């Protein structure tokens, strides 16, 4: 259970159109990630699904039932906020159990469910503390615990890990993935982070100015982006975009090639370039090179290439992995 359908969902603030109209099917039990640049309406879309904002048009359906006019609590969804939004004056246990208390669940049952969630999230020894006495990661887990105990049809996460440091992010990312595997509940997850999107999602939804540019499995978006926007947004470092004469050679006004799909040679190749910056990450090396008539390109080389700034190299794109785009930025599939 937990199928969510958006039908022509619209949102305007005063006369600013934030979401012009979104149609989306989220299958039950899936892990969907919304990505997009800042201000594109990810949070707004999530809040529309949650019922925290009123729809300006369209319908939200949960398990085929129109919930457009339902209050947030009636929709049976749980949300985890970016700032955690814990209740500072309550103990961890009361924080987690607050929703159940509001729903009139008897006390012993609340205690049982809180204990279960706390155990799942390694919070048992902190139940008596206040949120102010917890670390960032622990607070995040309390927020997740609060979401879990209500046994929702779907979880909504709004950039839940963005306040955590890198190591903790990786750990929490794994914990959330594990949670999804054990609960099998639908999850909708908003993030800025490429890695989070690629690793966690069953389906990535790329948003731009309130429109869905493309929705699909992570590898589908990586391998067959529908347009330039998605091509540039998915993948890290971003795809190299080449326009003009050099692109025309490959039969399109614009072509794109990912840094990892370029062969490097010291002797011969299609594009002569000069190395400007070398970034060594250990397993990989990223070269930022200047190519005549193409501007700056990024190339990934496995291991250490031994290249230095100023070196002359030749690059050859892997023709099979080249992306062609027409003048409107739409992908050309041959």
């Amino acid at each position, binding site marked *: 259970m937990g199928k969510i359908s958006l039908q022509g969902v619209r949102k305007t603030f005063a006369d600013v159109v934030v979401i012009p109209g979104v149609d989306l099917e989220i299958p039950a039990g899936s892990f969907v990630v919304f990505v997009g640049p800042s201000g594109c309406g990810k949070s707004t879309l999530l*809040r529309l699904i*949650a*019922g*925290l904002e009123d729809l300006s048009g369209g319908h939200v359906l949960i398990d085929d039932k129109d919930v457009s006019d339902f*209050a*947030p*609590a*009636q929709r049976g*969804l*749980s*949300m985890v*906020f*970016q*700032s955690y*939004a*814990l*209740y*500072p*004056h*309550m103990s961890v246990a009361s924080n987690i159990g*607050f*929703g159940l208390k*509001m*729903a009139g669940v008897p006390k012993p049952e609340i205690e049982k469910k809180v204990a279960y969630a706390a155990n799942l999230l390694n919070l048992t020894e902190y139940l008596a503390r206040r949120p102010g006495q917890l670390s960032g990661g622990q607070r995040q887990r309390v927020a997740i615990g*609060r979401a879990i105990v*209500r046994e929702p049809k779907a979880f909504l996460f709004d950039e839940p890990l963005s306040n955590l440091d890198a190591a903790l992010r990786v750990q929490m990312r794994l914990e959330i993935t594990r949670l999804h595997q054990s609960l099998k509940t639908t999850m909708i997850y908003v993030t800025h982070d490429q890695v989070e999107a690629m690793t966690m999602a069953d389906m990535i939804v790329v948003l731009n100015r309130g429109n869905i540019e493309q929705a699909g499995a992570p590898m589908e978006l990586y391998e067959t982006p529908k347009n330039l926007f998605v091509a540039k947004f998915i993948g890290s470092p971003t795809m190299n975009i080449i326009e003009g004469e050099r692109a025309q050679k490959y039969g399109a006004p614009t072509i794109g090639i990912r840094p990892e799909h370029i062969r490097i040679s010291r002797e011969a190749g299609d594009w002569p370039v000069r190395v400007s910056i070398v970034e060594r990450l250990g397993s990989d090396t990223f070269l930022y090179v200047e190519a005549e008539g193409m501007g700056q390109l990024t190339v990934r080389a496995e291991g250490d290439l031994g290249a230095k700034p100023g070196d002359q190299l030749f690059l050859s794109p892997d023709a099979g992995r080249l992306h062609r785009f027409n003048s409107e930025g739409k992908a050309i599939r041959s």
Partner: protein
Amino acid sequence: MATKQTQSAARLLAAPSIGLLLIWMIVPLGLTIYDSTLNYTLQGNPVHKFIGWTNYYYFVTDPAFLTSIWNTLVLVGSVLVISIVGGTGMALLLDQPIFGQGAARVMAISPFFIMATVAALVWKNLFMQPVFGLFAWIAHLFGAPPIDWFTNDPMIAVIIIVAWQWLPFATLILLTALQSLDLEQKDAAQMDGAPPLSYFWYLVLPHLARPATVVILIETIFLLGIFAEIFVTTGGGPGQATTNLTFLVFRSALRDFDVGGAAAGGIIAVVLANIVSIFLTRLVGKNLEG
């Protein structure tokens, strides 16, 4: 003030002002204590004899003393309750997005800036006057007999006037506190299905507890010394109905011309105020820690 050096430097630099403050406080206090042991009246004997505790004895055994303590408690307590409860309500209203919010806020705060004597006179002569006052007119509209406030309910009248002056202060502090309430918490409470009343009870009220204690502390300090409003309206009467401790001290000195007795009363008032403030600072301190 993290290190030892900064601490001693701070002490050294603060010493002159603290010394000055001490002199500022000690000299009048010392003089008052000295006066309180003398048989010092403005009528008759110009020789002020030392009489020990006698002034204190007479001040405390005067039946007006207990009445005045009771009146002080009633006045301070009622105004505190009205300004905290009313201030919370006002702050909640002013926090709503309404048309002309800015103007409404300024108007709601403005009574605080009106001088005590002016406010008391306005209330006395324009509102509560039993013949041509506004309240009398309203009572007349409904065919009810007008209330003669300062004769029949003098304490309530004084409480209304003082509360009117202090309500804006509480509103201001509580409103700022309300505005600092995290909006995502409100969203979270909505997701948790908390109806408005539960949201208020479980989230807003605990959030307001700290600013409310600050309001209580500050208002108590000022309310213990309320004088102008009583002087202008009831003159402490009728009888002793509105005589608080401050007014009793004033009466001893300038109506009974008993400077020694008034000084004794003043010292008693200082002791009582200190007891209250120690109690309150403890309370506030506890509330500000957590």
